[in-house]
């Protein structure tokens, strides 16, 4: 299990990166994150849905309801043009940042 703050900092980036591939709904997003991270990140609904709504409020993603075959509604999310621009920028930042942190954490000589 990760520190709450550690996950919070990168959650928005992960969600935007996922819905960039096409419209996705909450359950699928959580499942994808679990699968892609080999069950390391198990997103709780209490964190997932407020985070999606925050991104929607910021205009990064947009949500829309669609009726399933069984008649139940499902809310899908897709990335917006503004979100795409922010994602491209944050993705580049993240690569540089994570590589830099890894270097310090992994290569730092232990006392």
């Amino acid at each position, binding site marked *: 299990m990760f520190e709450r703050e550690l996950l919070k900092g990168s959650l928005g980036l992960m969600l935007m990166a996922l819905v960039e591939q096409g419209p996705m709904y*909450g359950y699928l997003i959580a499942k994808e994150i679990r699968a892609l991270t080999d069950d390391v990140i198990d997103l709780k609904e*209490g964190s997932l*849905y*407020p985070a999606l709504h925050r991104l929607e409020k910021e205009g990064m993603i947009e949500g829309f309801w669609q009726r399933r075959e069984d008649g139940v509604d499902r809310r899908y999310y897709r990335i917006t043009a503004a979100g795409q621009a922010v994602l491209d920028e944050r993705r580049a930042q993240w690569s540089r940042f994570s590589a830099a942190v890894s270097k310090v954490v992994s290569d730092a000589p232990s006392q």
Partner: protein
Amino acid sequence: MHRPNDSYFAELEQELAALSLAEREAILRELRSHYDDAAADPTADDQILRLGLPFQADQFGRKLKRIHRSAKREAAKHRTMMIIATVIASIAIVLSFVFPWFDGNLLAFILGGTAAICSILSVVGIWLPKQTIGQWLFWSGSTGLTLIGLPSVISFSSFYLIFGPLLLWTGTRLQRTY
């Protein structure tokens, strides 16, 4: 069978409690769809399926209902206070126009006019969608009305001394529900 513990619900409750009523409504609708998906997913593992189990659904439902009920109570209370404050301010507006005519001197008209402006500011403040500016307008208006009450006693009427503090009192109650 693994069951989500209290900390799971506490975390969910905490996250949802921090949201507005409209956001919470939207998320609750999505959560219902989420559990339907989990229950219908043949590849879902135990950790996912547990959320669809009657025990969890029941426990989860009760927790959410509690949050929901208290949020609705808060919203109703807030709305009632807004209506009461509006009624008080509206009476003050009408009386501000009527009372100076009884006295007829210039001071009474100046005080009455200022009181009317203060009361209008209060009403605008109550219903303004931008909460911070709304609160500021409301407090300025109701405080102004209270202050006008002091010189108006010697001029023509003490009614502002009643309506000003009454509006301020309503504002204090309203403040608690903001």
